[in-house]
Each structure stands twice: as structure tokens, then as C-alpha cells.
């Protein structure tokens, strides 16, 4: 699968989205990340492993502790894609707006 497909699959889960949101504030350890979730650290670790396989996050060591952090490039891919998608709709709505004005001026 291409990386964007993998990224989308990873993002379909709300827990994984929360983990990414948490990491957007800076690197964190697995136990830091697991803290706010009502699930075992093991379950959170599975989501982290999924995000790692999707290459959305990476782990690195600082002394004895393992930190997770976002990988910027794949996140940017998804964001760029979303932005293009949004822009396409904006343009479409511009044309709809023009058409509605035209239809209303015909009426009067």
C-alpha cells in the first residue's frame, strides 16, 4: 500500500487521532501518552505501534527513556491532501453561488 493509504487507515481510529494530537504538543513517553486514556498501557502501545508502522510517528531514546514524536512529512501529506480537497469544494461552492444568483435574477 502507498503511504497515504496507510496514513488514512491509521487515522480512522479516534484513539490514534488523540495520540497524534497529544504528540503535536511535543514528544512524549508511552506512559505519558497512555495517561489520559481509559485503556491499558498495552492497548495504547498497540495503537502507537500502528502509528509507527504507518510512519506517522517514530520512537527515539533519550537516556533510558523512549520517546515518541510525530514524523512531519507524512502528516504534511495528509494535511496537503485535505487542503486540496477543501479547496476543490470551495471552488465548487463559488460556482454554485454564481448559479444561484443567476437563477434569482431570472426570476425577478
Amino acid at each position, binding site marked *: 500500500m502507498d503511504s497515504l493509504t496507510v496514513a488514512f487507515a491509521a487515522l480512522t481510529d479516534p484513539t490514534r487521532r488523540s495520540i497524534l*494530537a497529544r504528540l503535536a504538543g511535543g514528544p512524549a513517553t508511552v506512559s505519558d501518552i497512555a495517561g489520559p486514556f481509559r485503556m491499558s498501557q498495552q492497548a495504547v502501545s498497540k495503537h502507537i505501534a500502528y502509528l509507527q508502522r504507518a510512519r506517522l510517528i517514530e520512537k527515539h531514546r533519550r537516556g533510558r527513556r523512549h520517546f515518541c514524536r510525530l514524523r512531519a512529512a507524512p502528516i504534511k*501529506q*495528509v494535511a496537503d*491532501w485535505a487542503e486540496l*480537497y*477543501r479547496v476543490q*469544494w470551495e471552488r465548487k461552492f463559488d460556482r454554485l453561488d454564481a448559479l444561484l444568483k443567476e*437563477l434569482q435574477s431570472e426570476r425577478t
Partner: protein
Amino acid sequence: MTKSPKTPPEAAGFEMTMTRTFAAPRELVFRAWTDPALLAKWWGPTGFSVTMKRWIPRQGGTILLDMNAPYGAVYPMGGKFVEVKPPEKIVFESAALDPQGKAIFEILNSVALADLGGKTRLTLHARVLRMRPEARQFLKGQKAGWSQSLDRLEALVIAMSS
């Protein structure tokens, strides 16, 4: 993640919500979405023409149209209506189709129209339902760097946003 104020942070690709207010009564906006001849006038990216084949706005009704790019490419789009509630709600699945008519991407689109007394607020919620491995063909240039594959990405988004 997307910084645009119009797109909430969870909209990073797999789902998004947009709102837009139109200076037209709700019935008219609803008609622009449900009359195939009117829809063909605004659907599709700038410079494209639409060949309308099927746009049957009732539950289970079929969607089939071609978007014709100014540079000659044709992007077929298929789908079906999930719910149509005049004059306030339209829910439909849309899919970018490959030349064999197989879905590459499938999106669930929900359109809600709120009556603001002569004006209409439209809220669009779109969610990626399925993404087939065929989506890869649009993204082959990715190895050469993301920016170089933007043309393909745009083509993909054009096909999807329909």
C-alpha cells in the same frame, strides 16, 4: 494538520466539515443539488465540463457522471443517494471510478441546508469510506518527492471531490 479555520483539526484527510452561506432561499439551493441539469452547471472543477448520466436524488438512486478536463482527461464518478429529505438534507456516496468503472475512492457526503430566512447555510461533511489499493496509480510519482506528484494528487482530488 490543516490550519484553515474552516476545517476542524480532525479533518486531516479522512473527514472534513465545511460550511458556506448562500444568498438564496433554501428551496432553490436544494433544487441546485437535486436537479441534474442545474447540478451539471456548478459541479466539477474550474474549467471542466460535466456529462450528466444519472443523478436520481432519492434513497438508493444512482449517481453517474463524467467530469471532462480541459486537457482532455475524463474523470468518471459514480455513487448512490443514501438519504434525501427535501429541502434540508442530502446524503450520498460518491466514488472516483477507474476506466473499468471500479471505485478508487469512496466518500460519504452529508449536505445539510439550514433556512436563514432568504439565505441558506450549507454544511458539508465528507468522510473517506474506502480507499482501494488502485489509488496508488494516481500517486506513483510520490517516490520522486511529494511536490512533484502534486499534479497527480490534484487529479485524484478532482476525481474525489465530485
